[in-house]
């Protein structure tokens, strides 16, 4: 589609160390249109961050290797770019916000300098102009201008995350990747930062990939959602599809393990078992060992994403072979919750 910002096709990334070969990402594909926000949801270690880092080709080189797949960003395959071209893209076309604001900023450089640096990198501007831009960005993210000359240790966690956002948006990139931006913050600050990100995206008509394991955040911000499990997307669709027309047993498990305000006292059912060891994944569907609906067939073949049809949107797809049998339906949908 013309307005496609990002198109990832079966991306595979492994971390090769002496002890073991960790298959972090095993064939992830998805597209992202302009001005849309995609939420990548899944437990820790499912390969969300690795996917994000691969978009910027920032996977730490010695252990991590991008085995195959293509990442087309605005018509250009990032994986084929040379180092110089990559540097031009990073920060300019695509920017990233990191999880822990406490360590994301360089402690020995003033906040203003760190923002101005990314401006100077991508635009031929003098130092003063860059500093002015930095002050402008600070004002944008709700920090007083004169604090540009302060050092990171003089800011609270929430303020630091705002600075990181300011850095990311300094050259108003087309795509913003936010890797669990609010996890490290406490709830009240979390709401402010999310609010800020929502306004900025609308204002700069940017598209964003939000990586999180907090379904509440996804519901509030994301247009589309992709559920990731053991390095693969098991279900993808609009927020409404995933929340109201859940199709994949793993997604159902995620929702079940959430406390529900309406029915207090309902017993939580955590998904039994543990995340599979990424260095030796079970055969076939990697969720099979923990899936209540699993059959023998499930552990034979790796299920492909298939459109769901029915009442959900055209984007809604699920990777579960149980739907070969048309009558199959999740317990959750039966009660019509």
């Amino acid at each position, binding site marked *: 589609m013309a307005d496609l910002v990002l198109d990832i096709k079966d991306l595979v990334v492994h971390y090769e160390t002496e002890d073991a070969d960790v298959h972090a990402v095993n064939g992830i594909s998805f597209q992202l249109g302009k001005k849309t926000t995609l939420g990548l949801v899944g437990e820790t270690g499912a390969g969300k961050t690795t996917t994000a880092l691969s978009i*910027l080709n920032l996977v730490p080189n010695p252990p991590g290797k991008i085995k195959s797949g293509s990442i087309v960003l605005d018509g250009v395959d990032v994986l084929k770019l040379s180092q110089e071209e990559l540097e031009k893209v990073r920060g*300019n076309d695509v920017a990233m916000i990191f999880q822990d604001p406490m360590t994301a900023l360089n402690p020995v450089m003033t906040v203003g300098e760190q923002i101005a640096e990314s401006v100077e990198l991508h635009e031929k501007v003098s130092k003063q102009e860059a500093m002015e831009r930095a002050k402008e960005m600070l004002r944008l993210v709700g920090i007083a201008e004169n604090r540009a000359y302060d050092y990171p240790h003089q800011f609270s966690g929430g303020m630091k995350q705002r600075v990181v956002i300011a850095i990311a948006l300094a050259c108003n990139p087309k795509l913003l990747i936010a890797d669990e931006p609010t996890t490290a913050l406490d709830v009240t600050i979390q709401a402010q930062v999310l609010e800020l990100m929502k306004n900025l995206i609308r204002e700069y008509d940017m598209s964003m990939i939000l990586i999180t394991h907090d379904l509440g955040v996804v519901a509030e911000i994301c247009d589309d959602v992709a559920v990731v499990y053991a390095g693969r997307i098991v279900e993808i669709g609009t927020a409404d599809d995933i929340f109201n027309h859940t199709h994949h047993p793993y997604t159902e498990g995620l929702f079940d393990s959430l406390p529900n305000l309406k029915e207090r006292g309902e017993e939580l059912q955590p998904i039994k078992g543990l995340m599979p060891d990424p260095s030796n994944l079970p055969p076939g569907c990697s969720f099979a060992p923990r899936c209540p609906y699993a059959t023998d067939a499930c552990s034979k073949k790796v299920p492909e994403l298939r459109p769901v049809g029915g009442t959900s949107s055209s984007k809604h797809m699920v990777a579960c072979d149980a739907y070969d049998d048309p009558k199959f339906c999740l317990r959750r949908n039966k009660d019509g919750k």
Partner: protein
Amino acid sequence: MIKYIVKRLLQLIPVIIVTSFLIYWAMNLTSGDPALLIAGDKATPEMLEQIREEMGLNDPFLVRYGRYMLGMIQGDMGESYITGKDVFQTFMETLPNTLMLGGAAVLIAVIIALPLGIYTAIHQSTWKDNVGMVFALFGTAMPNFWLGLMLILLFSLKLGWFPSGGKAGFSSVVLPAVTVGYGLAALIMRTTRSSMLDVIRQDYMTTARAKGCSERQVIFRHGLKNALIPIITAIGMQISMIMTGSVLAETVFSWPGIGRLVNDSIARRDNEMVTGAIIMCSICMCLINLVVDLVYAFFDPRIKAQYAKKG
């Protein structure tokens, strides 16, 4: 900040007092009678007695120590028994040589150690890393006077590039500086490597890369500045090693520095000179440590804040 400096300088006082007491007491215990050395072989017992009286060597230790400290307070550190020259003046005459040697050694050490430390940190656990580490280990393992001898053997004897000893212009400082500097370089390189390794793993390096900085910028602008703090500590701590190292290099290269001055004075039982020189040595080192601490603040805003708050 100024208050902090004054506080640190005040801390010098107890150090001086205790050091002077320790050294003076130790020198007092050493066998050998200064009067004998002054009067020479042909001295008669009466003359020796007269010299001892004159110089107050017969007074009890505490009286002599008291008199010495009284002199110290008035800025007069007494005269050397042997040369008769004022201790303070001799020390200040010889100090520039040691500083020149120490300075050149630190310079050479830093020029070798920093790039090598960074290089081995970037190419961690490759053969380059191992070669760098072996270079560092050799530096710490090699007795530096032996290195000095080998350098003389090679560079001044066989190749004749550098003078083998004595102080005559810049070319004469090269071999002694390398002798002292190599041991230093080894230690600084290990610290640089380990602190760079810590820094490389930090998140702000990934932020910098995400901003589009080139690898070189990431390492030098962001990485090195943060890694410098432990490196400066390492250099600061090596200051005493420079003094020790130079005692040996000065002996091998006949370099007229403090190390040799103290060593000869101890041999000649020149108590006033030894005590004075060692006190001045410890003052120099405390000052150098203070300078190193101040340099921290320049590099690390968090520490500057502490000074401001504390000072």
